[in-house]
Structures are given as C-alpha cells and as structure tokens.
C-alpha cells in the first residue's frame, strides 16, 4: 500500500509545534524563541512590525505575503510600503485592511 507523504509530514510538524509550545509554556520561555513563532505588532491600522520570518513571497501595493516558519502571513491593504527590511525584522506602513494566516 502506498503512503501519502504530505499529510503525514504536516501532521508531524503540527505535533512538533504543539509540543514545543507546551514545553515553552511550562519552561516560561517566550514562544517566539522556543518554537520560532513569528511576532507581529500592529499599531492602529497603519503600521505593522513583523519579526521571525523566512522571506517575502509576494509584494505589491495591495498585498504582501510573508513566509514564516509555521505559515504564510498575508497582509492586505492599500499603498503598502516596507519602511525597512532586515534579516530579523521588517516594518510595513500603509492602510492595513486584513491580516490572514494561511497554511
């Protein structure tokens, strides 16, 4: 019988994330350090700072898709501009309408 690989991997990674988040919770370690979760700080509707990401997948004035360790973060809005883009952190300015997490 042939095994389907993708669902298994996805299930495994889900369990791993869950385990890591439980350990970090018990050990009082911030989750963004232990599990490598991305940290998003939104100020009002015009400013967003994101930390712990892998890179940009798509970028246009209406949509910015960022790849993180666990999922893709889609930021939709108008006149989106990256104020700075560094290895650890980026700051986005513009009218933010929606932030979505997609697997």
């Amino acid at each position, binding site marked *: 019988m042939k095994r389907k690989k993708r669902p298994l991997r996805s299930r495994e990674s889900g369990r791993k994330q869950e385990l890591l988040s439980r350990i970090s919770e018990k050990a009082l370690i911030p989750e963004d350090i232990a599990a490598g979760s991305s940290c998003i700080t939104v100020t009002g509707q015009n400013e967003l700072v994101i930390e712990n990401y*892998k*890179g*940009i*997948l*798509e*970028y*246009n*004035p209406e949509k910015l898709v960022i790849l993180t360790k666990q999922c893709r973060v889609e930021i939709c809005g108008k006149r*989106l*501009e*990256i*104020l*700075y*883009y*560094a*290895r650890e952190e*980026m700051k986005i300015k513009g009218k933010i309408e929606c932030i979505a997490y997609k697997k």
Partner: protein
Amino acid sequence: MKGKLLSWMKGSVRIRIAGGFCERFLNLCAYHNIRLWSLHPVENGYEAELSLNGFRHLKPLVKKCHVNVRILEKRGIPFFLFRHRKRKALLFALLGACSLICFLSLFIWDIEIVGNRSVTDERILDYLNMEQIHQGILKSTLDYRQLAADLRQYFPELTWVSVKLQGTRLLIDLKENGDRAEEAEDSAPADLISDVDGVIVRMVTRAGTPLVSAGTAIRKGDLLVSGSVELLNDSGEVYGYQYTAADADIFVKTEYSYQDTVEHKQLKKRYTGNVTSRRLLKIGALQAGLPFFGNPYEQYDCVADTRQLRLLENFYVPVFYSKIVLREYRTTWQICSPEEAEEQLNRNLQNFLEKIQQKGVQIFQNNVKIESTDSVSTAGGTLVLLQKAGRRTALATQNQKEGIPAE
C-alpha cells in the same frame, strides 16, 4: 534622525530592481544582512534604498537572481567628496575650518555666573579681570580649584563656589547665604560701638556690659556696650572676664542737615522721536558697522543689544553681533516758576523721608524750610531723627591683650 545622519555620513543609494526573481533578490539581501529601507513596488519591479557598503556586496546576488539593478540616486558624504575631488580649495577650506574650530576650542569665549544675588556679576567680573581671567584666555592656563578657592576668600558672602568648564564657556556656580554669615558673627565675642552722633533716648541691653545710659551724648566710634562681662567673687573682686557678643537696642536722637537746590533755569532732555538702528559685527578685535556712514544725530542715546555666536550649546566663538538703536534728543533750557521749583523740592524731601523711614528711622522733628530767590530755590534745615545705633566690632579678649595664645 540618528539613522538618517549615519546613512548620510556613510553614503546611501536609491536603486530600482527589475526583471528576474525580485522577491528572491529581496530575501537574499535580508539573508546577507543588507538592510533595505523605503522599499515599495513600482511598475515591473521595486525601488529601495540601501547603504553604500551594502550596494558593494550586491553583485553576486544580482547574478543569482537574474535581476537588473539601476542606481537612481546617490546620497551622502562619500559621493559629495568624490564629486568634488578636484576642488582643492574646497578641501583646504574644510580642513581650515576644522582646524580653526579646534584652535578656537582651546580658549574661553564666554563667562557665565549663576546663583548670585547680592554679589553682582560686575563685581565678580572685575575680580576675574584683576586676576587676568577674561574672554580669550587659554583654557590650560586656568586653575579651576584655585579660582574657586580665591573667589570664596575674596567674597566672604559666598558659601559655595563651583568653577566648571563647559565647551568654551566658563561656568561659575555660586551660592550665597547671608544668614549663616550673620549667625557666625553673632556667636563671636564683640563690642557694640556707635555709628552715629547724638543723644541716647532709650536703651535696653540684652548682653554685655552697658557703658552708657539714656541721656548720654555719644559720638561716632564711642563704645556703647562692652562684650566683656566681669566675673566677681564673694568679696566683690574681679577674678576673670566672660566674653560675649554685646547686644542692645539703643535709640539715639540725631540731627541731620538736609540741603537741596533746584535752579529755575534747567537744562532738559527732550526726545525728538527720531530713531535709527545700526548693526555691528565684531570678530575678535575687528569690527564693522552697517551702514558704514556716521551717526546722523548730534545728541543721542545709544542702546546696544549684543549677542555672541555659538556653534553648539556650550561652544561659543569670538563673533559678536550687535543691534544698536540710536534715539535722538535735544537739550533745551527750560525756565520754571518758583512755585514749580518749590513743588519739586517738596517732592524730593518727601521721597527722602519715605526712604529713611523704610530703613526704620523715625522722624522726630522736621525743620526744613524752602526759600526762593530769582534764579534758585533751596530747601534747607535740620531733621531730628530717632534711629537705632550700634555696630558690632570684634572684641580683643584679655588673653589676646596679654599675648597668651588661645587654647
């Protein structure tokens, strides 16, 4: 602000990224610690700013992602210097300016005195001038600790002096405490001597041995209350002295001769309303006025508002800018009537009486009479005043008189 200044000093470029895999290129930049800012999408690509150093490391990334990078703008000192590399005079001027600033920072160009109330700025500046401390002296020639100690010694009113150097400014911070000085004086043995001529009306002695009594005529310098109190034994003989600070309320009736004159023909200053202003620029010992032509008025009052140039908060340089306002006036002879002159004399007398009353002097009798002739009016006569007398002077104790050193 700090980041902008830093990027301007190190140099930055604005680039346009087009073609190939632009997003991958952006991610590679971030991965290689090449910071991008002001990143926004444009038609067929992106525009971003990055440091000059970051730009120098872009080449392998450009090849890897097959993108086309074009410089749109260059900013910062490295580009400025490169653009003006053939302008030798500019380079020398920059070097000259820098060395001039370094040279000027070796001197003191401003003296600021803070915290003084009774000791005026002028008195302190006069003392500093006497000590050869003025604007334009070398910082290295100044001994701050010595200056602070000297100031404390010269002005006993000062209880605390701090001398600091901030940039090219000498900051003298002072604290005065009159009360403490008085207290110290109070406790020291002292005699009370007269500071006026007159007759004692009333006297209450609180400490010391009174040498005068009510009704005694005294002169300036007479000893009123001695600070030494005799100690007597059972047989009434003096076996020692106790020294104290003499204290007494002594009211003395004195006579004061008052004289005042007002001439009927007086020279009066009358402003014409003509006002003109001048600008004066002073660099070191050189000065230039604007406009260059002379003063248009024969008689004028001159008010100058002078400001000193400073590069930073505490970096003063010897460049002064003054705005001078000239106000024209004419002097005319005015003749006033004897009544007006008498009125003025009366006003002067009232002012004088109010002033001495504020000092605690009571007016016992007023014999001032006003007389007028054709050209002059005079007020003259005696004022009988009731005032408090007595001034403390240091007391020489018996031991000191005999030359025995104090324990």
